[in-house]
């Protein structure tokens, strides 16, 4: 994916990221492609399991609690005191807080984290910095 995906006539709502981030690539290639009778088959270190976990946990009590918390926090949005972007930031921040109920989002962010080639701490990265700092700023404002 190093090769051009030439951006088309721009200005659209469709996001066209250069798919060089680990999360995108993992989602695209995981369990894909023909299976051959291999001499050695290596697996993704750590990543595969995390991704599968994220898929399984959806219909769990933890997920329900996370939904409930996110729903409980909707008041900011409903009062109309903030614009949509701010409300989104607040809610997302609140929904992903420390407890198990934020585990899924945590996993997604861990997989997403950073495009640099620092390989050994990839599994437990903190949430993508850009998003997080924007959310924090909104909350502090």
């Amino acid at each position, binding site marked *: *994916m*190093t*090769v051009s*995906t030439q951006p*088309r006539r721009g200005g659209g*709502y*469709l*996001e*066209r*990221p250069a*798919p060089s981030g*680990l999360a995108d*690539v*993992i*989602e*695209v*290639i*995981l*369990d*894909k*492609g*023909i*299976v*051959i*009778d*291999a*001499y*050695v*088959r*290596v697996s*993704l*270190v750590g*990543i595969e399991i995390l991704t599968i976990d*994220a*898929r399984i946990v*959806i219909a769990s*009590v933890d*997920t*329900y*609690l996370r*939904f*409930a*918390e*996110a*729903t409980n926090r*909707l*008041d900011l*949005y*409903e009062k109309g005191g903030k614009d949509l972007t701010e*409300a*989104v930031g607040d*809610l997302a921040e609140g*929904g992903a807080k420390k407890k198990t109920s934020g585990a*899924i*989002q945590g996993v*997604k962010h861990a997989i997403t984290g950073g495009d640099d*080639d*620092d*390989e050994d701490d*990839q599994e437990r990265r903190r949430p993508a910095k850009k998003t997080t700092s924007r959310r924090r700023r909104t909350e502090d404002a």
Partner: protein
Amino acid sequence: MTAELGCYVYGVVGSTAAAPDTLPEGVGGTAVERVALDEVAALVSDVPLERPPGRRRDVLAHSAVLDAWAQRGPVVPVRFGSVLEDRDAVVPELLGPRYDDFVALLDDLAGRGQFTVRARYHEPVVLAEVVRENPEIERLREATRDAPEEAVYPEKVRLGELVAQAMEAKRQADAATLLDLVVPHVAAHVVHEGAGVDHLLEAAFLVDDDRRNRFEDALESVAEAMHERAAVRLLGPLAPYDFVAGE
């Protein structure tokens, strides 16, 4: 020092297909080469086995090699992490036994590319819809909002369950809308299982080169129509990871 080497296999291409202008490095910084049998060839490189591939840069290298070749012509991706004993094994163990399959697959994939679409809800927006549309959810929300979790645990779980169900119903409707608009422009598609609570749709599309503009235009209109409620991302063109036989 003689490190034990294995023959890492990325995929299969035509043996006389034009190579990419820029050849990405393979796994572990190795050079990717072709091992051919008549019309087909495996893309391979020698990798050390005492530190097997499987890390971030290996994953990126695997996909970079395949996607670069896919820009130039058909390629059949092999699953990540497949290593043969050595190059001498490529023809007798891979290309020979499945030669006809590879020829047919490459022929079928010519002039087509894969695009992967990922649509995710803006969760608070859709949650607000769910609350407005469902009195029981609104009631439980009020009942649990300011209470400590221990005191209203069953209600919270019930609330979350109802919200999850309501989100699922929306997801099915919205995903169907998206697919209805896009699928007429593609040769094939595969819908993936979701990952994440804001999941709306993740799907791979095999698109003929000469219909790509129509496909992208259709998706752009979908993204515009949904933009207040969801974000739609498009990756590609990629190697056709989802459109080769899994076994």
